[in-house]
């Protein structure tokens, strides 16, 4: 084939490859089915955050400090704490960008989170909308967040 044809093919393949990997970048990897106790205990007050969003050391710290969980007492009996802790650390994030332990183990203070939700993408006023509330309320805009789906094409920011 001619050089220009080969070049066109190469560009086509590279574009396709980058499109595929770009959409991979929006998903923290396959999310395991939620542990029933995780959904029942932890999602009683907030989103059931997919375990892949934090590295294991962050989950471990959170689970040993439940009586002081971001300002509230979220303590559980030892057996349930151990069960949930094991599940979280076993399914914790291993992608390079999730290896960083964010400040206060807050998902929303991770470098990757701040980058993806910077002011150009999400104006500050959006976080204050009644339907959103705070950056920690993933499902307000990412309806399938608890299943680990964050594809930007499915984002719907409520008014």
């Amino acid at each position: 084939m001619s050089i220009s044809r080969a070049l066109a093919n190469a560009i086509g393949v590279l574009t396709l490859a980058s499109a595929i990997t770009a959409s991979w970048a929006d998903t923290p990897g396959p999310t395991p089915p939620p542990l029933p106790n995780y959904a029942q205990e932890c999602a009683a007050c907030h989103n059931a955050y997919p375990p892949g969003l934090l590295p294991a050391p962050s989950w471990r710290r959170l689970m040993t400090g439940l009586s002081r969980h971001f300002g509230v007492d979220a303590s559980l009996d030892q057996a349930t704490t151990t069960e949930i802790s094991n599940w979280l650390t076993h399914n914790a994030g291993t992608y390079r960008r999730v290896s960083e332990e964010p400040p206060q183990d807050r998902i929303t203070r991770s470098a990757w989170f701040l980058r993806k939700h910077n002011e150009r993408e999400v104006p500050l006023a959006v976080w204050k909308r009644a339907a959103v509330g705070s950056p920690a309320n993933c499902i307000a805009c990412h309806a399938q967040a608890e299943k680990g789906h964050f594809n930007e094409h499915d984002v719907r920011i409520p008014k």
Partner: protein
Amino acid sequence: MVTLSSGFFRLWLLALIGSALPSLCAQAATPAEQLAAYSARAGTPAQPTRGQQFFNNRHGHDWSCSSCHTVNPTVPGKHASTGKVIGPMAPAYNPERFTDTAKTEKWFRRNCNDVVGRECSAGEKADVLAWLLTLKP
């Protein structure tokens, strides 16, 4: 001869299961039963009006029970931090409330620590539950 199909075996099996059931369902208790238990531990009868006052008091901290459960817990409440919807607390409006003693104790322990800064006494729990049980359609 005792065989699997014999009436004797069936009776034995039924007795075995029947005696195990109470321990399997040990946590289940109606709201009235839980109120009776707290009142008995407190040693005094529960007072619904005192319970309502306790429910709406901030106890010197940031939140009252009503901060999340509303002043009228016949309607859904909302977590004061996360905004997560919380089903009504009054048993007449939410049949699953106060049906599992372990669950009741867990939430009293955590929420009293946050609201009051300590565990609630049996008397305080009795008062609050007594008030919640007065809320009928």
